Structures are given as C-alpha cells and as structure tokens.
C-alpha cells in the first residue's frame, strides 16, 4: 500500500534528513535521522524507533558523567522513577530530589551514579540496581523462617523457577529476597552536614573544630565508636543513639542551622547514617594530624558534628581521569573503593585462615626449601611465627571481636601493656616485639598523613592507620584504631611483614620470591579446603586436584564435578595494594589494576590475566584433553576466580568483566555458566556446601536472570542465613589456638 501523509492524505512523500534536538542544562543534543516529508503540506514525520534511539543515545552520553539538574531529571524519567520514589530509594527526602532537579542544591555524585545506573538498566530492561535499592528501602524485617522452593530430582534437590538458555538443562534458583546480607548496606548514602543542617562544613571549619580538642582524647573516643560500629553494625540502634541523637542536644550561635538539624533528626532519625569505617578512619587521621594538646576530649554531639562534616569530604578521587573511562568503568572503580570499607568478616575463620596460611612453608617453589623458608621466617618473626601470632595479632583479633559490646570485660580497644601482660607468662618485651610492626607514635603517623594532603588541608583517603593501627597515646598505652583495622592486619599485616623480610634478605629479587611463594601458600590453603570438603562420606561432588600446584596433571587449580557440571576454580593470591583502591588515587588506577588482573595477555596459557588462564583451560576441556580424567569435552563449565583479597565484586564489575570477555573472546565457549568471583571467605562457604552434600554447581548456575550479577557472598548468605555452617575443622583449630594463647598468658609460676 502506498504511504500517504498522515496530516493531509497526499501520497507525495519524500525521504529527508531531519535533526532531532534536545536541550538539557544549556547543552544541545542533536542527531540526524531519515524522516518523511509531505510534498503537499510540508509535514515531517519522524520514525518512532529513531526518536527512541536518539533518546537512548542521550542517556548513554549523560552516563559519561556530565550531569546537571535537568539532565538528572531526564535520567530519572529515563529510569521510570517518580521523584518521590527515587527519594525513597536513595534514602533522602523528596525535597532533596526536588532541589537537585531545580538546581538549588548541588548534585551528589553517589545519587548521580545510581540514577545513571538505573537509567541504563531501564534501557536494557534490567533491574539489578533498582531491585537492590527497593530491597534496601523496604525496611522489611528478615523472615525468621525462610522456605526455599526445592524440588526433589532423584537423589538431589534443585530450586526451580524457570529454565534458562545459556547452559542447557539447568534451572534458575528461586532466591528469597527478604534476607539481606550486611554488605548490601554499602549502597546506602550517608548523611552530610549539608543534608542535615542545610549547610556544608568547610575543610577549614572541620579542621578548626578538631584543633579545639585533645588529639589523644579524640582519637580514643573515635576508636571506641569504631568498635561499636564495627561490631554492632552501621544500622544498629546503639550507633544511632551515639551518633545521631546527640545532634539534637547541640547548642550554639547558629540557631537556624541547629533547628534544621533537630528537625532532620526528628523526621528521619532511623534513616540517618553518619558513622561508618571511612568517616571514622578519616577523622582519626585528621585528629592525629591536627588535634590539639588540651585535656578536653570531644563529647558525643561534637563527634556527631565532625562525622556529618567529614562525610561531605569523602568519596573523592585524587585524580578523576573521567575522560578516559566509560561510565561503567568509573562506577566499577567507585564500588571497588567502597567495598574496601565496613566489611565484617567471620573473625574465627579469619584467625584460623591466617594461622594456617602463614604458619607453614609453601609446598612448591623456591621457598618450599626448608632452609630458605626458615631464613625468611626468622627475619620476619625473630621469636617464631607461633609466638608472634599467639602473643600478638591472633589474640588482638579475638579481642577486637568483643570490643564495643557493652557486656564484654574488655569492651574498649585499649591495651595497657603493663596490665595486659601483668603476671602472665608473656613479658612486656615479648608482647611489644609481637606488635612491633603494627604500632606507631603520633609523630610518625602525622608525617605519613601529611604526605597526602589535599589543597584544602584535609588528608586524602588516608591509610596510615590501616598499616599501623595500634597508636601509642601514652607510654605503653596502645589504642587500636578499629576492629576493622585489626582484622585487616590478619589479611595484609602478616603478608606485609614477610614481604619486608624478603626484601631485606634480597633487595633485588626478594619481593618477587615472596609474591610467588604466597601464591603457592594461598593455593595450598584452598587445596586444604577442597580436601576437607571431599572427605565427607555423604558428598556427591568429586574434587579433582593436581598432584601439586602447577603440576603437569593440573586441569585447573581446583575442579569440582557435580551433577555433570565442572566447576573450574582458578586460585589467585594477588592483593590489591592500598594505593590502588583504599587511597583513592584515581578511578583509572583501579580499572587498570582490574584489567591487568583479569585480562593481561602475556603470550601463553600459563601466565597473564585470570580470565585468560581460565578460558584457556576451558579450551583444553573442549578439545578433549581431560577426557581420560572423566571430564567430557562438552560438559557444562562454571568458571570461578578465587581471590585472597577482595577485587570489588559488584554487579557493575561483573558487567565490566563480561564486556571485557566479549572483547577479548574469553569464556565465550558453548555451555559456560556465569563467571563467579569468590573471595576466600566465599570459597570456604562453597567448600562447606560440598562437604555437607549441598549443591555447588546448581548454586553457581543459579546466578542468572535477576541474580546474574549479584555478589556471591550475598547469595551464599541468603541461601543459608544467618550464618552458613563453617567447615568443621575451623572450630577445632580455633579452640586449639585459643588454648595455646591461654597457655602462653597463664600466670607465671
């Protein structure tokens, strides 16, 4: 049928170029499309799909970060969100969203990032970020009983919703979403002085207030607060009583601001978050740098004010590098940085893990040689590793888990060394030797902090206390910065001490030798876990390990075969240096690290990025190289990268890796399930599932549909809340360690 003009009915239509335009924040977006023009009446008709594509291109361009008030509103509408609903999801008032959109209040980067993510996801008909925000905003109490829809299939069980196409024959798990992992709180925005009082606290004001109080009193108060926040949770009522409620009691000449602050607290007290690891740590560094020498320690209300002020100065990169990165890369970098803070590890497992990984030589490599290992160990720990761990760090980590709890005997993070060792079998010098690398004096810390100051005089993402969290506030009186910092030492402190010793022994090659040895030590630990998982008589999964790490019979570092599916686990011991993420140098630094870690091409299948190596192993499987080991060439595979350190697992990171895999042609083989990034804590839980006869392959394959890009720790938690059972040896080891510590500290005869 010949087309006619929609306006006048004339059949004379001509194809013409038409420019679609949209103005936002003074910028004009334009795009040429082919339209039709009526030769009789002059009406131009623009195809709807072309107009749709133009609008999506505008969203994609705005996602690069140039977002002003009108663009923000445009993105919100693109995300399909009412202003009031967005306010609920972001935990701000509708008035705040309104002021963002009419330009009366500066846009917050976190809000922009989330709205961009929501808009992009809406275009792709996905809802990962929105669902997470909806769950966070729902404030539902977790069900005490969670019933999962399991279906019996022969001797196994499967949770089923619908069949999925990517890996045939496997079902999507019906995950309950009313059980929330604590890490989900990372997406909550925290409050600033501007959002509470209506006025930002400048760097000069914050510094001035800090100078008015004693540095050691302020540091101690902040350490006590950190203990409560770390062990009771950012969202706990006790934390709100300590940090939010005191704002109501503030007095001073700025009556209007204080009245507004009181109104904020009264209207949304239970939504306000002021204290978290990053803000407390930032203030501790600021106090060490600028605190006064008076006798006066700040009260709760003063610290609350500092927290609100500090929050307005966080979340900044030293360099933005925004032009070279896509919006997805910048978001991934931001989430990597955020994920370094406020984690709450299982201390029992962390202590046992540290003791087992670092307390023995690697099974492979140059340091497997007894003599070389002893030489390194004796430099790192002159009194022996056991004495170091049982006298110092192991004990401190156990105590740190109790700090902040009101009913604990040792509720405060303070160690009076004389009283602490008292009449025990440990001498003051032995204790001091054990904590030598982790304690510091104010002057040393000040020098370290002063090296990375911003132009406004505030420290930039300081990390001095991350390395040396025991501050000697008076002779032989140590105050630990936070339980976070102490458990952080379990992960990195011992590692760093070995590294320093290795450099001392061989300044040229020592570091490389240690890094290689640690890779083997970490793999040895993962192999131990796999063996523990495989010993149970009830297990349905088969675990395949090479005769030793890197041996010629290696299929992958660890392979779990279950229900006809092979789970390929590639174990990586590399740590993300503080300068990459915690110190927030630039988003590009984070993205470069990730790309190198996952995708680096070193020319062969044995070296290079984690995903290159994994993909080459799957190529071998597909070639039939492992058929003599019982692995058929066409069997479904789930790739898992097991890491010692967090690599910032997030939905955005997964999407970034997926793009990278497509770009480099990795993991694109047929029947390859979704990539999983498993921190060692997650891998321990996966092995616990194997040990208890619970499915692992189906669990990992269930990360499709709404769960496709979700973090493994959250899914593991939701599968077995509130705390999935540990592998049994953890408790046995922990009790034995506790007995040895008690024995060391028992009274001298």
């Amino acid at each position, binding site marked *: *049928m010949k*087309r*006619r003009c*929609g*306006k006048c009915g004339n059949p004379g239509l001509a194809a013409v170029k*038409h420019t*679609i335009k*949209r*103005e936002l924040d003074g910028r004009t977006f334009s795009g040429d499309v082919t*339209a*039709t023009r009526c030769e009789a009446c002059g*009406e*131009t*008709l*623009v*195809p*709807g*799909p072309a*107009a*749709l594509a*133009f*609008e999506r291109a505008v969203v994609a361009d705005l996602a690069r970060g140039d977002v002003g008030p009108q663009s923000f509103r*445009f993105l919100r*509408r*693109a995300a*399909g*969100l*009412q202003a009031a609903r967005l306010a609920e999801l972001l935990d701000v008032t509708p008035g705040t969203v309104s002021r963002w959109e009419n330009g009366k209040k500066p846009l917050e980067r976190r809000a922009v990032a989330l709205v961009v993510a929501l808009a992009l996801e809406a275009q792709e008909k996905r809802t990962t970020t929105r669902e997470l925000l909806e769950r966070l905003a729902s404030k539902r109490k977790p069900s005490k009983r969670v019933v999962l829809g399991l279906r019996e299939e022969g001797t196994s069980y499967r949770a089923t919703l619908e069949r999925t196409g990517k890996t045939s024959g496997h079902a999507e798990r019906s995950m309950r979403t009313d059980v929330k992992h604590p890490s989900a709180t990372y997406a909550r925005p925290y409050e600033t002085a501007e959002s509470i009082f209506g006025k930002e606290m400048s760097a000069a004001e914050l510094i001035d207030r800090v100078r008015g109080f004693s540095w050691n009193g302020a540091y101690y108060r902040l350490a006590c607060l950190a203990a409560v926040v770390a062990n009771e949770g950012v969202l706990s009522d006790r934390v709100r009583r300590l940090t939010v409620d005191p704002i109501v009691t503030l007095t001073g000449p700025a009556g209007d601001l204080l009245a507004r602050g009181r109104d904020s607290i009264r209207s949304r007290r239970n939504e306000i978050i002021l204290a978290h690891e990053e803000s407390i740590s930032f203030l501790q560094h600021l106090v060490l740098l600028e605190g006064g020498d008076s006798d006066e320690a700040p009260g709760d209300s003063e610290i609350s004010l500092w927290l609100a002020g500090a929050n307005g100065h966080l979340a900044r990169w030293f360099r933005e590098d925004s032009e070279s990165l896509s919006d997805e890369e910048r978001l991934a970098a931001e989430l990597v940085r955020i994920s370094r803070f406020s984690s709450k590890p299982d201390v029992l497992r962390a202590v046992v893990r540290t003791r087992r990984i670092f307390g023995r030589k690697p099974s492979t490599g140059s340091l497997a040689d007894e003599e070389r290992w002893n030489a390194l160990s004796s430099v790192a720990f002159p009194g022996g590793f056991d004495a170091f761990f049982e006298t110092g760090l192991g004990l401190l980590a156990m105590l740190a888990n109790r700090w902040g709890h009101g009913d604990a005997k040792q509720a405060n993070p303070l160690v009076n060394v004389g009283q602490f060792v008292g009449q025990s079998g440990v001498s003051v010098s032995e204790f001091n030797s054990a904590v030598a690398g982790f304690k510091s004096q104010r002057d040393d810390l000040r020098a370290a902090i002063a090296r990375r100051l911003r132009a406004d005089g505030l420290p930039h993402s300081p990390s001095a206390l991350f390395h040396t969290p025991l501050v000697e506030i008076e002779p032989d009186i140590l105050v630990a910065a936070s339980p976070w910092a102490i458990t952080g030492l379990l992960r990195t402190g011992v590692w760093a001490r070995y590294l320093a010793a290795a450099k001392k022994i061989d300044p040229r090659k020592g570091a490389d030798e240690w890094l290689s040895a640690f890779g083997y030590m970490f793999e040895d630990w993962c192999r131990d876990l796999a063996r523990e998982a495989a010993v149970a008589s009830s297990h349905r999964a088969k675990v395949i390990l090479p005769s030793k790490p890197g041996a010629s019979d290696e299929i992958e570092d660890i392979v779990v075969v279950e229900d006809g599916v092979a789970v390929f686990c590639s174990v990586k011991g590399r740590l993300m240096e503080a300068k990459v993420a915690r110190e927030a140098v630039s988003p590009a630094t984070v993205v470069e690290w990730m790309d190198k870690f996952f995708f680096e091409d070193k020319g062969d299948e044995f070296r290079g990025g984690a995903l290159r190596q994994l993909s080459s192993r799957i190529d071998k499987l597909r070639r039939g190289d492992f058929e003599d080991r019982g692995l058929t060439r066409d069997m479904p595979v789930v790739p898992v990268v097991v890491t010692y350190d967090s690599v910032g697992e997030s939905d955005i990171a997964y999407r970034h890796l997926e793009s990278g895999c497509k770009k480099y042609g990795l993991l694109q083989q047929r029947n390859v399930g979704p990539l999983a990034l498993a921190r060692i804590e997650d891998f321990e839980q996966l092995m616990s599932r194997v040990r208890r006869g619970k499915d692992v392959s189906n669990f990992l394959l269930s990360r499709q549909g709404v769960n496709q890009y979700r973090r493994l720790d959250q899914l593991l938690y939701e599968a077995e809340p509130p705390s999935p059972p540990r592998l049994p040896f953890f408790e046995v080891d922990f009790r034995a360690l506790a007995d040895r510590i008690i024995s060391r500290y028992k009274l001298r005869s």
Partner: protein
Amino acid sequence: MRARRRIRDLARAGRWEFTSHALDSLADRDAMVEDVYAVLTSAQACHSAPGGRWRLTGDDRLGDPLTLIIELRAQVIVVTLFRGDEP
C-alpha cells in the same frame, strides 16, 4: 477496542511516527519518547476524535496520565500529546 489493539500492534512492530510538532512538544509536556511508546502499547482508553483521529489515554512509565492524538493509517502517527485536561 479494535483500534486500540491495532495501535498497539503497529507500535510493537515499529510502525509509529511523530509529527515534528509532537516530537518538539515532548520536553514541554515533561514526557519522553519511551512514555509515548508506553501509552501506545498499553493505553487504557481510546476514543474517536475530530478529523478522523483517535484520542489515546494511558499512563506514562511513571504512572502519570498522558493523552496522545493520533492518526491511524498504515502506521501510527502521533500528531500531538498533552497532559491532564488540556487542550
């Protein structure tokens, strides 16, 4: 009912167009192309309008009412759009 179904089917098949006036008025009506598409494919009411046109009323993606005036030929042509009781 038949007109509404026809409009929905044409829109889903990608056979829908804007007059330049309708496209230019999107910003003034606080609407996006996606909202127009949402109304075309899920309108709640469709009534005949003067000049052989159709008046299609539905909710945009934010749940706010949006009315389209359309021509229904071999393709759907969005002639104009407005909010609430205008014009």
